[in-house]
């Protein structure tokens, strides 16, 4: 169990980790692609902007150089005017750092072999114009000069160090200056410092840690980026400026592009780890509490199981062998407990002591463990208290006291407890909130009269009231729990007392077992397979006619005496009744069955006086032999002398003498002789 649990915990974590990781990876790679596309787009757009701006600068420079050239051409024969032109241009066009006009060798012999006029803007804004050509600045060898001479139009030079003009790294745009004859006599030159280019292209640094560079067509750095570091991956985006062949590059280290993503990835990763840790904790905790839950469930189940065993044992202690009293022909008792699925709290019990039948049917409120405990307790209390107490009210009161004192669960118990005096048929009972039993007397079923006593377990000192009724022979008492009347069918209809009474009313001559079995059948038909929700207990007690059946054999006579001894007839009546019955029975045996096969059936009943004492004893002797009415026999002669006496006729004479009444009837081929003896 435990290892399974921790395995499943690990599995949960693993699966969660894999799922999260997969999600993160997918997200990461899609984000990466998106970010890369975005970076590229951004770079391209900045590159185009840079190209545009540089182009604007260049166009301005080219315009400036053309203007300068045009101005210079006007004064191509005057070196001072050329110098003035450079000065004027610088004044006119603000963003040019320095301009110059480099004349061909010996154009103005008076000025010498080299003549290059250069105007440059001073830091204070003033313009400084001077002739910078000379042996130390042999501009004839420079690229830009060569460009100016050879290209017909604007030409941009490679970057170079202008030590004489701007005194910084510059690129120069040159334009030829022609004389009136159309010959190139000088080169107009406008310089842009690389610093300026650098300034105008600053926005190319699209990431904080990205670089950009501008290279000339020959690969010289115009604007320098940072050196790349081996092993670091870079994304490089280029754009070429058509006019100059310059190449603008944006160089972004990949880790810079994906810095945000990586940072987010890191955060997500951390969150994931935290989440997984949390999940692990939850799983562990849940596992533990599950374990606790499982343990408690197991404990409950075990407890319930044990209680079920206890309950089964308890039920096994209830009388379950029927008929229960082989030596009590006057009592026929049958009972069942059908426990619902759960351990429940129904019970019945009965036993006979000193010719008294003690019985009870109870129903503990609720179900489960506490109910079963209370039921068990009630059962032992019933057995214990009845050992020294015979009054139902006293028994119930004592049981109630004990149950109330030990009742921590606020449970209660309804109970019907009765004590039937088998000798007299007097039934004392106490009904503690239980369903009123049904009594069958004289062929009529009716609810027994019950007063409203509190159920047990509520009030320790409650004074329970007992009641008394008289049971006559063949009366039947039917007890039950609400598992019967409140049984539900699938439509949630209750069985109810009406159906119970209806079922009972059809049984006026049934034995307890048959009554209960037919009731069960009726109930089963009613509920029609619905789940039994409550315990069902039924107990039926018949205070019945004791009877004896004898074979047509005179040697059976002694059993008659034994049977009569067990009827609880007052001592002084024992012999007369015994003798009268023997005379009648032996008469049947001797004369009723000429072919010797047959039976004699003797039934006993006693009638009670108003004081509940037996007053009249009634015996019915039935045989299926030849019709014979002993009451029609002539009175025996008991006065004549022995010599005159006839042997015979004494038996019927004795019966007449011994009994108060003798009635004969012939019914359905049977001789039925009723002997009545009054006390």
């Amino acid at each position, binding site marked *: 169990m435990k290892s399974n649990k921790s395995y499943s915990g690990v599995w949960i974590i693993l699966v969660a980790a894999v799922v999260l990781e997969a999600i993160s990876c997918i997200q990461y790679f899609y984000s990466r692609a998106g970010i890369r596309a975005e970076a590229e787009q951004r770079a391209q757009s900045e590159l185009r902007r840079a190209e545009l701006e540089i182009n604007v600068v260049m166009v301005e420079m080219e315009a400036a150089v053309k203007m300068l050239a045009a101005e210079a051409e006007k004064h191509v024969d005057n070196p001072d005017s050329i110098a003035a032109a450079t000065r004027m241009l610088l004044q006119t066009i603000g963003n040019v750092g320095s301009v110059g006009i480099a004349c061909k060798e010996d154009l103005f012999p008076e000025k010498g072999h080299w003549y290059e006029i250069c105007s440059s803007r001073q830091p204070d804004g003033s313009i400084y114009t001077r002739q910078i050509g000379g042996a130390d600045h042999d501009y004839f060898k420079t690229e830009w000069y060569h460009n100016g001479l050879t290209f017909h139009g604007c030409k941009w030079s490679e970057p170079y160090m202008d030590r004489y003009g701007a005194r910084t790294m510059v690129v120069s745009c040159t334009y030829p200056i022609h004389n009136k004859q159309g010959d190139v006599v000088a080169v107009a030159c406008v310089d842009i410092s690389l610093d300026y280019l650098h300034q105008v292209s600053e926005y190319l640094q699209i990431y904080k840690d990205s670089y950009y560079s501008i290279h000339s067509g020959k690969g010289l750095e115009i604007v320098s980026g940072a050196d790349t570091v081996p092993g670091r991956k870079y994304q490089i985006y280029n754009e070429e400026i058509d006019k100059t062949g310059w190449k603008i590059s944006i160089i972004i280290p990949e880790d810079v592009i994906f810095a945000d993503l990586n940072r987010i990835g890191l955060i997500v990763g951390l969150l994931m780890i935290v989440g997984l840790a949390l999940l692990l904790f939850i799983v562990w905790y849940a596992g533990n509490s599950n374990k606790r839950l499982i343990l408690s469930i197991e404990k409950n189940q075990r407890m319930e199981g044990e209680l079920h065993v206890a309950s089964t044992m308890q039920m096994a202690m209830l009388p379950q062998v029927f008929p229960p009293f082989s030596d009590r022909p006057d009592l026929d008792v049958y009972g069942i407990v059908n426990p619902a699925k759960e351990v429940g709290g129904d019970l019945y019990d009965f036993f006979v002591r000193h010719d008294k039948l003690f019985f009870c049917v109870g129903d503990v409120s609720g179900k489960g463990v506490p109910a079963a405990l209370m039921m068990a307790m009630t059962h032992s209390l019933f057995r214990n208290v009845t050992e020294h107490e015979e009054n139902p009210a006293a028994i119930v009161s004592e049981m109630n006291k004990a149950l109330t004192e030990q009742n921590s669960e606020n449970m209660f118990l309804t109970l019907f407890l009765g004590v039937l005096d088998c000798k007299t048929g007097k039934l004392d009972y106490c009904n503690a909130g239980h369903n009123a039993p049904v009594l069958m007397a004289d062929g009529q079923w009716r609810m027994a009269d019950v007063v409203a006593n509190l159920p047990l377990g509520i009030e320790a000192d409650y004074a329970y009231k007992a009641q008394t009724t008289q049971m006559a022979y063949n009366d039947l008492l039917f007890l039950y729990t609400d598992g019967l009347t409140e049984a539900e069918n699938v439509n949630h209809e209750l069985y109810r007392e009406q159906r119970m009474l209806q079922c009972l009313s059809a049984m006026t001559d049934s034995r307890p077992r048959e009554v209960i079995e037919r009731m069960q059948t009726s109930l089963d038909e009613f509920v029609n397979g619905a789940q039994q929700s409550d315990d069902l207990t039924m107990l039926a007690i018949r205070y019945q006619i004791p009877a004896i059946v004898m074979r047509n054999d005179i040697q059976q006579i*002694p059993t008659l005496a034994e049977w009569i001894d067990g009827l609880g007839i007052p001592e002084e009546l024992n012999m007369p009744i015994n003798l009268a019955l023997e005379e009648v029975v032996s008469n049947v045996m001797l004369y009723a069955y000429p072919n010797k096969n047959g039976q004699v059936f003797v039934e006993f009943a006693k009638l009670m006086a108003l004081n509940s004492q037996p007053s009249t004893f009634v015996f019915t002797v039935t045989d299926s032999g030849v019709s014979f009415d002993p009451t029609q026999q002539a009175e025996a002669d*008991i006065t004549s002398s022995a010599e005159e006496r006839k042997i015979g006729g004494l038996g019927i004479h004795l019966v007449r003498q011994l009994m108060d009444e003798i009635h004969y009837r012939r019914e359905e081929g049977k001789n039925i002789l009723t002997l009545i003896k009054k006390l």
Partner: protein
Amino acid sequence: MTTHIQENDNQLIAKFSGRLDTAAAVQTAEDVKPLLEAADKEIILDCTDLEYISSSGLRIFLGVRKDAASHGSQVIVRNINADIRQVFMMTGFISLFEIQ
């Protein structure tokens, strides 16, 4: 039910013990036959241990009584209990026998 017969010089004593009911009467009738053959002796029916008697038993007693009378003998019933005395009363047997 047992019947034990004792013979003295001038007495035949039949000692009954148990219940003389219809079932027992068959055997008892056999057991008392010696009483019927013994003439001129006093017949004592000792009922000290006789618990119960039915009409079948009474018939046996009556048979003994009749036979004795024909031989001129006397039958004495000794030590009957209350129940049997009641039966003797009801049947008039109390006047047929000498009860001791």
